[in-house]
């Protein structure tokens, strides 16, 4: 046996369980803004999943959604009975706004997933292999950046809905397909940093396959900024969906989303301002929840905070 020196135990170690994610968690859990934004997000997710839990049970068999639609009650101002008033159909506006969460969040979630998946795939390949592939992907992404967002959305939406009516997934794909270039840029640049680190070189020198290097060494070390970005992005996607619907190029008019509600309310702002105010508040609070969460994650993931 060799007689090398055994360094003393634990001299420079702090505690056993410190990994990147646990360190981040330690930072996060002490921040009230993290918990605040988490509660906001949970409330909205619950609202989207189980709107019935938020709305009083239906009074009759002809009104299963609990919206209490009575045409005679149209455009009532907020009252004890109808907290947020009623809309043009005479439906309870509190119930409407609550039901609107589902569509808005579905669009936000899937549009973000869509753009992050494409972005990580293309950005990862471009960053890792470089050369022509990188040049090609980057120029395409640049092309998308040059396109004004709304113009792009109109083009994609009209291309998708040549026949039939617009559906939720059309809007989701439209928003997602405009979001990926930003993810490509971000993820590519982190991959470029990580791939030149010595532990990646070390794996390469050992003869590790590209797949192993990308999956084991690059992805876990490069994913954090993209995670943060997409969380912040969720907030803005909710707003984009509302904008598109507001402009009349988003969701079909018979679906319930905050964007649609705003569209309809915009025409009657003088007489019934409550129709505009309540969905706006929900929209802003939900977006804020995701943006705040993203900011907190960014600070927790930033090693300079340690």
């Amino acid at each position, binding site marked *: 046996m060799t007689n090398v020196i055994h360094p003393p135990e634990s001299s*420079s170690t702090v505690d056993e369980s410190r990994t990147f994610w646990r360190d981040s968690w330690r930072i996060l859990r002490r921040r009230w803004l993290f918990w605040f934004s988490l509660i906001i997000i949970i409330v909205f997710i619950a609202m989207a999943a189980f709107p019935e839990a938020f709305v009083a049970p239906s009074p009759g068999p002809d009104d299963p959604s609990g919206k209490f639609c009575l045409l005679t009650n149209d455009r009532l101002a907020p009252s004890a009975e109808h907290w947020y008033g009623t809309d043009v159909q005479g439906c309870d506006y509190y119930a409407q706004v609550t039901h609107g969460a589902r569509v808005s969040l579905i669009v936000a979630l899937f549009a973000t997933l869509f753009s992050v998946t494409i972005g990580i795939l293309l950005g990862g390949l471009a960053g890792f292999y470089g050369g022509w592939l990188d040049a090609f992907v980057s120029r395409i992404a640049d092309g998308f950046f040059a396109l004004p967002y709304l113009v792009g959305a109109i083009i994609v939406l009209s291309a998708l809905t040549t026949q039939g009516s617009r559906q939720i997934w059309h809007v989701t794909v439209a928003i997602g397909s405009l979001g990926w270039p930003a993810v490509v840029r971000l993820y590519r640049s982190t991959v470029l940093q990580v791939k030149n680190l010595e532990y990646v070189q070390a794996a390469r020198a050992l003869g590790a396959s590209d797949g192993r290097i990308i999956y084991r060494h690059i992805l876990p070390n490069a994913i954090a900024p993209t995670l943060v970005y997409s969380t912040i992005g969720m907030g803005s996607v909710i707003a984009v969906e509302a904008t598109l619907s507001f402009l009349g190029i988003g969701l079909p008019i018979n679906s319930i989303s905050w964007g649609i509600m705003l569209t309809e309310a915009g025409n009657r702002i003088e007489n019934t301002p409550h129709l505009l105010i309540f969905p706006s508040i929900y929209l802003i609070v939900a977006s804020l929840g995701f943006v705040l969460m993203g900011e907190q994650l960014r600070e927790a993931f930033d090693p300079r905070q340690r």
Partner: protein
Amino acid sequence: MATVTSSTSSADCLRSGSDSSSDEVLLEVQDLTVEFHTDDGIVHAVSNMSWDINEGETLAILGESGSGKSVSVQAVMGLLPTPPAVIAGGSIRYRGTELVGASSDTLRSIRGSEVAMIFQDPLSALNPVYRVGWQIAETFRIGKRMSRKEANGRAIELMGRVGIPNPEQRARQYPHQFSGGMRQRAMIAMALALEPKVLIADEPTTALDVTVQAQIMDLLSKIQSENRMGLILITHDLGVVASVADRVVVMYAGRAVESGPADDFYAKPAHPYSQGLLSSVPKISGPTGKLNSIEGTPPSVIELPSGCAFHPRCPHSVDRCHSQAPELTAITDRTGHSACFLTEELL
């Protein structure tokens, strides 16, 4: 306003009895304690550290990474990040003026103009978007309210003095066009612009190649003797300061473990850590073979070992070292001080 008093505290340990003792004491740090209050606990960055520097003298503060060797000068220069850093005790005096807790006007009048500092990485200390000459001239324009033209002239003159060839031409270049050694010379020129009485150099040669290291050390020592400055060199490299240091302080785990005249230290280090450190440096001549090394690793500054912080790595440690921390005390028949119970036995 405090004046320099001669107390019997450990601050006097470093008042050297060498030929420079007749010179004025410029900067005096006494019993300085700096803590960093972090999430993981209190980091005892420096505990009860004392040193002083006279006119025309060179002091080397030696230590490995994490030993706290830079902390006391960062406190002098106001570079400690507060929070988390807290000066928990002690004093820093510049020619009798107390700097700890002084007004920002007082501090501004001393830092930069009376006490200047250069850093390890000259690239990050120079602004990449301005010409080097302009950056040096700026010091004259702001510090001495010179006209643009006069300041430029002085900048070029100073660049020549620090050994930058073709200074007129070089002044118009940007930092990235300078090599590492030239950048360090530009930094030195900038630090010298206001004719400071004390120059602090934090690892000035660490980022440089060996042939350039020698040039920069020669330059620093030449300028020091010309201007009769006090020069403080902070380094982990025992070799580069050997020929220029008058006195040394050796740091370990936030404490000074040995101090005294450089020649005595290099010829016969007193503290077991100093002995281990000096003997683990490989030499360019003499026998080769297995190197002496200090076992183990430096302690975490959050959880320092009990007693003497060096005892877990010390080949001579006795029971007492585990429980009791030795003070820096005078070494018999020598001007230096050592913080070890066994100093006399080991010498």
